[in-house]
């Protein structure tokens, strides 16, 4: 019955159809007054109330034709309410089942990460011996990847806040990364996750440096974007450290408002400075008793670990939203978006890649980018288990579930970067 009464939630524009007849005019006036007829949340509230007001007996009243909308961000026939209910059910059942095993998982990962960090650095102190250098770089880059992806990114999302452990908590965590956690939580948790793939809102679309959306305007500087792409990959942590600073995203870097940029810039610089001092000064100095070559080997090992971490995180993140068939939305399309519409956008705006348990943990489970975007605050160790359910739901609702091998997904990203470095062909 509710389906008859509910408008196609998530559709945009002004509803023009008649109001459901089952509420009295007095009800309507009163409800319209405090719900503000005309915008969608108001209407959704109205129909919810109407549903509740209707006695659940007798024949179905005729609610009249569904309101029609001039344009829709959604395919015809897609039942966004049903989609939202089904995805909500996954979220609820997962939340209800969190417990000791999940807590043990994240604590184990943290123990492994810290042990790897120590072991990697110990090996790098003997880095004048090439095998020790290689082993040290492997362990330290593994530790940094684990810390940034499976631990830091996910803890900062609040995925583990339910444990009420003040040390593994989104409000207290600071990560092994050049970006201050506070700025990351704003640019990522808020701007990116709230506005996933909405052009003009989600600053992560090309990170303001790369033209990944053919509908965005082309400037001559985009000719250099293949080089920018490589540079950003190598120094990804530094790029992210500046990313939240709106002022430095000015189109012309020469016109940057330094006064506005300064507070966050200082915060970023403090973080970068302390990260750098640890990896490139204090840590290598521990090798001083072993001589200058050992100091240099430790420093170069730490640099290599940072770069490897950057390349890997860059690859994983670019595979999450920029492969072919990932959709970019306009602000108009998401105006008055319903919960189901929000879910739909997360699925259409994200892409997975295939992998086993080791890939899951080393990507912070962002190989399940779709699941992460649907449920950014569910513990990441659960994404693999809910992925088949999400996929089944997508199939039933005829929504494309974008997944492929890492190589294929990344290949399409590279092709886009090259193609959109040039202006669009004239129609």
């Amino acid at each position: 019955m509710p389906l008859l009464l509910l408008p196609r939630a998530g559709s945009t524009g002004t509803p023009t159809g008649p109001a459901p007849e089952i509420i009295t005019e007095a009800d309507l006036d009163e409800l319209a007054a405090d719900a503000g007829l005309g915008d969608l949340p108001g209407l959704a509230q109205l129909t919810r109330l109407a549903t509740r007001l209707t006695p659940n007996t007798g024949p179905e009243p005729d609610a009249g034709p569904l309101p029609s909308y001039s344009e829709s961000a959604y395919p015809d026939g897609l039942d966004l309410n049903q989609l939202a209910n089904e995805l909500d059910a996954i979220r609820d059942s997962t939340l209800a089942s969190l417990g000791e095993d999940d807590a043990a998982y994240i604590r184990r990962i943290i123990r492994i990460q810290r042990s790897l960090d120590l072991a990697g650095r110990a090996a790098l102190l003997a880095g004048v011996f090439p095998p020790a250098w290689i082993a040290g770089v492997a362990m330290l880059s593994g530790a940094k990847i684990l810390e940034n992806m499976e631990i830091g990114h996910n803890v900062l999302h609040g995925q583990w806040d339910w444990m009420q452990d003040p040390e593994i908590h989104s409000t207290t965590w600071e990560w092994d990364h050049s970006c201050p956690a506070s700025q990351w939580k704003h640019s990522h948790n808020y701007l990116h996750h709230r506005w996933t793939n909405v052009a003009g809102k989600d600053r992560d679309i090309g990170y303001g440096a790369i033209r990944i959306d053919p509908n965005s305007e082309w400037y001559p500087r985009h000719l250099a974007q293949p080089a920018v792409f490589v540079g950003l990959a190598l120094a990804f942590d530094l790029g992210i450290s500046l990313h939240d600073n709106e002022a430095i995203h000015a189109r012309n870097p020469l016109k940057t408002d330094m006064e506005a940029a300064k507070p966050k810039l200082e915060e970023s610089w403090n973080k970068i400075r302390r990260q750098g001092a640890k990896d490139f000064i204090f840590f290598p100095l521990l090798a001083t008793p072993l001589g200058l070559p050992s100091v240099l080997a430790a420093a170069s090992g730490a640099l290599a670990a940072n770069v490897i971490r950057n390349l890997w995180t860059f690859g994983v993140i670019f595979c999450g939203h920029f492969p072919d068939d990932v959709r970019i939305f306009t602000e108009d399309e998401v105006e008055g978006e319903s919960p189901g519409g929000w879910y739909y956008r997360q699925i259409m705006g994200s892409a997975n890649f295939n992998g086993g348990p080791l890939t899951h943990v080393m990507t912070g489970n962002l190989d399940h980018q779709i699941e992460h975007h649907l449920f950014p605050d569910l513990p990441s160790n659960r994404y693999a288990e809910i992925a088949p359910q999400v996929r089944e739901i997508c199939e039933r609702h005829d929504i494309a579930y974008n997944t492929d091998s890492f190589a294929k997904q990344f290949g399409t990203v590279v092709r886009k970067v090259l193609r959109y470095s040039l202006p669009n062909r004239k129609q």
Partner: protein
Amino acid sequence: MNGLLERLTYPLDPDAFRLLLGPLRTQRLQGVIESVTPLTPTSAELVLRVGRSWPGHLAGQFVTIGVDINGVRHTRCYSLTSAAAASSADRISIAVQAKPDGFVSKHLVHRTLPGTTVQLGAPDGEFTLESAASRRILFLTGGSGVTPAVGMLRTLATMNAASRVSSSPWDVVAVHHAPTRDQAMFADELEALGRQHPWLTVALRTTRESGHGHLDADVLGEVCPDWADRDVFACGPSGLIDFASNRWTEAGAAHRVHVEHFAPPIAGPGSSQTGLNEGAQAQVTFSASQHQVTAEAGSSLLETAESTGLLPQSGCRMGICRTCTVPLVQGTVVDMRNGRRSDAGSHVQICVSAPVGDVTIGA
């Protein structure tokens, strides 16, 4: 040295790495449960090993214990029952009575395994031997209220053994109440201490057997005729605590009253101290976590949050440890202990605060 270490482990604390060596190697306060010994069918004494960071405690103080149950950290306060010792102590103990609806207490008494790591707070509380004005003391305890008294009596017994000659000897009477002897925590130990030490007189009053009535003025005069000359340490049901406060105050000895509550003394729902009237509701918005929940009369903001699945940080749940303090962004709340109102802009303890109408909390 520590400065250099911190630069090397940045952004983590060096303790994060010491933790790899074991829970007691760190500078944070942690304990490992060594044993859980049943005292009665519904209570147990827990012995905890503590590391070098343990600061020591005063006899009668309590400690906050954070224990993980099904992955979720729960924090509660319990009185220390081990004798007070300097910071060199490597073991402490607490005693816990499992309340019928006590999620944490039942877990600690019935389902805690030796080897479990728990988080500790620094020992705290004013209900200590040090606060006594004289060495003539009367303990009036009921139920699990005996636990701080046990900590103090064990401390006195240790001190007594250490220095046999004392210029002004302790003179202690302990009157403990429990429904039955089976339900009386530490009954055997208290009586043994009484037999062993001439300075201690113990009276166990089992109110549901042996025909012992509840404590009143006559009974008090009977079990402790010189009560008015003594410092009283009262801990247990609120009736017992009120009795002691009133009795000593009437006798002009209010300064000799020492009381310890295990639950916040809160008036019933609908009174001016608990915010909403019976049946009334208010919207509570948690602005940082973007949740809105409905509060019912008589519930603290903490209970309201927890009833809807939110888990704000909290500690003692009775307004003493301040772990749960958050900014009040909008509206007015009332402190359920004393009826004091706080308005937007102040910081409030959500475990003892109830909303007066709709409020917004910065948590």
